[in-house]
């Protein structure tokens, strides 16, 4: 890529910002596919149970007071258990959590500005309520995002769609979600080829303007519509009559119920009792 050294800054920045992004998001999706295809006790659980337990986890975490920090920490047990038993990669999970962090960080960082009343003294240092609620926001963020990512990594898109279907979402929604997922790879591939072609033919900011993009997206759209037409025709040839049927029934087993009930009990316990305070008192009580 010798032209990178001679071209002005803007297209280099644009290149490095969004070209790898398209390819890396494809890579991400395929990696998720691989992860959800593993065979562990977590992967074998019924997807409905996993979805419901994760939602209960998120609700429990979010029901805490805005200044709560230590009470939130034991909830890390749920993502840790999923990660460990599901044999999922920790580094990858952390990198995805970090990627999603900027927005929450940016909104949360205002709290110390607006909430300056000193709440706590650690030795000589006074910590204001704003910093405590900011820490609480960050902890909540890490917990909820990792739970959601682990849910998808251990269940996969098919499992999630089955769960949504059984939980009452309309069939047209879940089936087109599956279609979206399948064709995402194809369409993102096309879009990345288009952007690469544009990058190779443009110079400075010429060629990256609105009119060109309008034409590019318009072309992509027309090709997409044609493709959808072909897909529909192929489905009709194979007997599609407008009604979407599902033939692999889900079964709830005792392991699933145990998982759900056990974690629900754990969440309630951790919500009501502040475990770290108790452990901390124990620890500091032992030290003379």
């Amino acid at each position, binding site marked *: 890529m010798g032209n990178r050294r001679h071209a002005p800054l*803007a297209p280099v920045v*644009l290149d490095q910002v969004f070209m790898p992004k*398209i390819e890396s998001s494809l890579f991400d999706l395929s990696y998720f596919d691989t992860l959800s295809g593993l065979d562990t006790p977590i992967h074998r659980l019924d997807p409905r149970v996993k979805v419901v337990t994760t*939602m209960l986890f998120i*609700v429990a975490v*979010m029901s805490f007071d*805005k200044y709560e920090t230590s009470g939130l*920490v034991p909830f*890390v047990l749920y993502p*840790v*258990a999923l990660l*460990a038993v599901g*044999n999922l990669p920790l580094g990858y999970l952390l990198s*995805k959590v970090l*990627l999603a962090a900027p*927005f929450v960080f940016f909104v*949360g960082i*205002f*709290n110390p500005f*607006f909430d300056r*009343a000193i709440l*706590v003294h650690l030795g000589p240092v006074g910590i204001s309520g704003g910093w405590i609620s900011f820490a609480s926001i*960050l902890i909540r*963020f890490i917990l*909820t*995002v990792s739970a*959601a990512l682990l849910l*998808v990594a251990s269940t996969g898109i098919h499992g999630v769609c089955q769960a949504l279907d059984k939980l009452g979402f309309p069939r*047209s929604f879940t*089936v*087109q979600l599956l279609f*979206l997922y399948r*064709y995402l790879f194809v*369409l*993102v591939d*096309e*879009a*990345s080829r288009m952007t690469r072609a544009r990058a190779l033919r443009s110079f400075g900011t010429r060629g*990256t*303007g*609105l009119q060109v993009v309008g*034409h*590019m*997206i318009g072309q*992509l*759209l027309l090709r997409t*519509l044609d493709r959808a037409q072909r897909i*529909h025709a192929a489905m009709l040839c194979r007997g599609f009559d*407008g009604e*979407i049927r599902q033939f692999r029934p889900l079964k709830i087993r005792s392991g699933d119920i145990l998982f759900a009930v056990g974690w629900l009990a754990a969440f309630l316990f951790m*919500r009501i009792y*502040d*475990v*770290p305070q*108790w*452990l*901390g*008192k124990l*620890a*500091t009580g032992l030290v003379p």
Partner: protein
Amino acid sequence: MHMADALISPAVGGTMWAATAALTVYSGKKLRERMDEQKVPLMGVLGAFIFAAQMINFTIPATGSSGHLGGGMILAILLGPHAAFLTMASVLTVQALFFADGGLLALGCNIFNLGFFPCFIAYPLIYKKIAGDRPTPRRILLGAMAAGILALEMGAFGVVLETTFSGISDLPFLTFTLIMLPIHLAIGIVEGLVTTAVVTYVWKARPEVLERVTTSGSLAPLPMKNVLAGLLVVTVITGGALSWFASAHPDGLEWSMFRTSGKEELKTPDTGPYFLLGQLQDKTAILPDYGFRSPEGAESEQKEQEEPPSSEEPWPAVSAGTSVSGLVGALVTMLLAGLIGLALRRYHRRV
């Protein structure tokens, strides 16, 4: 960037989820009634298209920075409001699940902000009226700009309301609004311009694509009473069950009053209208102080004249002792959790 779970309370998240779920079921039903379930493959593929199109950046004319398409308006123009809503919902679901862009509980809020406003309000009330039946480049521009700006401003305002009602972020309502609305005005203008560019291209290349939607019948009014019923149910649930989790400590106002004046409530005078009204309130309140009334009436009168007993800890536990032990305890908990995780992984590797 969409809303994250960390900034929302369960009450707000649950309410918005109820509204979104009601709209989703309604849209699905409408599609089935109109025999539009044939459109499902098209919807899925167009959803993937919106995803891919969002990755094509362009330089914004005056500023030199880059922007990208949102997509709600284009979907509404091509598919009609109900199908577009479902498609937008699925795009946001994939973004939340696979890219951690928006939380799961916040997904209800995000689908409402980015799906309901463009598809059910901006499209039918603005774009369709201006450019729906007989699109020309000028009308498309006008319609797309107006609809895009309005949809984005409403979405941004929705974010502000949801964040403020949750009470976790301290950003004051006015400040947040004054930050969000101008930014989203700019984004709305950009969205309008890109939508115009794409729709104009399609109209020039293949106008029959645009005509497909306008002939598919009129929009029935939204079943507002279903949405309201859903909201009512969720409010009852959150008020009932989730209030068990409500802090027994004094609320923010009482706390700040305690900090500034040493009292949690203002002492009401012993005579005059305040006292009489206070007595009346005492007699009629079914759930005084959000709890069940104590059996003796005399006891409550006695309590009224006492200051709140000092056995109630000021919130939060301000003593340094609790905070240090809390910190130590948190570290110990994390250590334990990590050890449990390692142990689980070892055990399952062997099995």
